[in-house]
């Protein structure tokens, strides 16, 4: 299972980075591959490659604000799960719940 995610938040400070770590941690526990792009106060970090997005089984958007360069995901809309960073931090398991 390959998971990719994008995190961002209103001030670009705490939630962006905390949600990223929460997603990486739960994927590690489950033995899944995981890459997380952070769109925070430091700009775009760990930017997902087209290949990462194409090969992902699951795409998590954990954002309070619009995703930058969202057109990269246009062809994969059925794989996207939209959540808030806050919800992901408080209960990372929701990523894998229906």
């Amino acid at each position, binding site marked *: 299972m390959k998971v990719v995610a994008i995190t961002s*938040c*209103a*001030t670009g*400070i*705490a*939630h*962006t*980075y*905390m949600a*990223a*770590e*929460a997603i990486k*941690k739960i994927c590690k526990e489950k033995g899944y591959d995981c890459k997380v792009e*952070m769109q*925070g*106060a*430091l700009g775009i970090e760990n930017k997902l490659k087209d290949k990462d997005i194409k090969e992902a089984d699951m795409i998590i958007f954990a954002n*309070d604000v619009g995703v930058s360069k969202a057109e990269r995901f246009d062809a994969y809309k059925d794989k996207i799960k939209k959540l808030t960073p*806050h919800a992901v*931090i*408080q*209960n990372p398991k929701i990523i894998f719940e229906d």
Partner: protein
Amino acid sequence: MEKVNLADVLVKEAFVLDHEPFHSKEEMFAFMASKFKEAGIIDDEAKYIVSLEEREAIGSTFMGNLIGLPHGKCEAVKKPGIGFCRCKEPFIYNSFGESGEVKYVFMLAISMDQGADHYMRVLAKLAGLLTHEEFIDILEHGKSYEEVMEMIQKYEN
């Protein structure tokens, strides 16, 4: 990832262990703001508290796991810094319609200057560490600023 040193930004004067539980988030804001003022992190407590409240109006800073992470960014911040307060018992923290028990408060002071990337990097690192139970354990058991710093550094290595 480059090594970042939490000791550079975790403000000793605003590092408080075993405080009595606060009656409200607002009481805690005033207490921590006064510590930041003493430490020279901010030059105006009222302005800084307004910036904390502005952030509260956008979304919750209650992070679960007994953690509250309020943050304020404004002109009153002269030097970026992180304050920490561990309470003896959890208190009720109301944030953006959410209510939860908080025992560990990390308060962030963010300056307006754009060149603070190193500091933002440390904040990002800290935010990540907060999702690790082992890190929370350090916060629970540390007996002094120095001991907590030492334990964090060991944990990172």
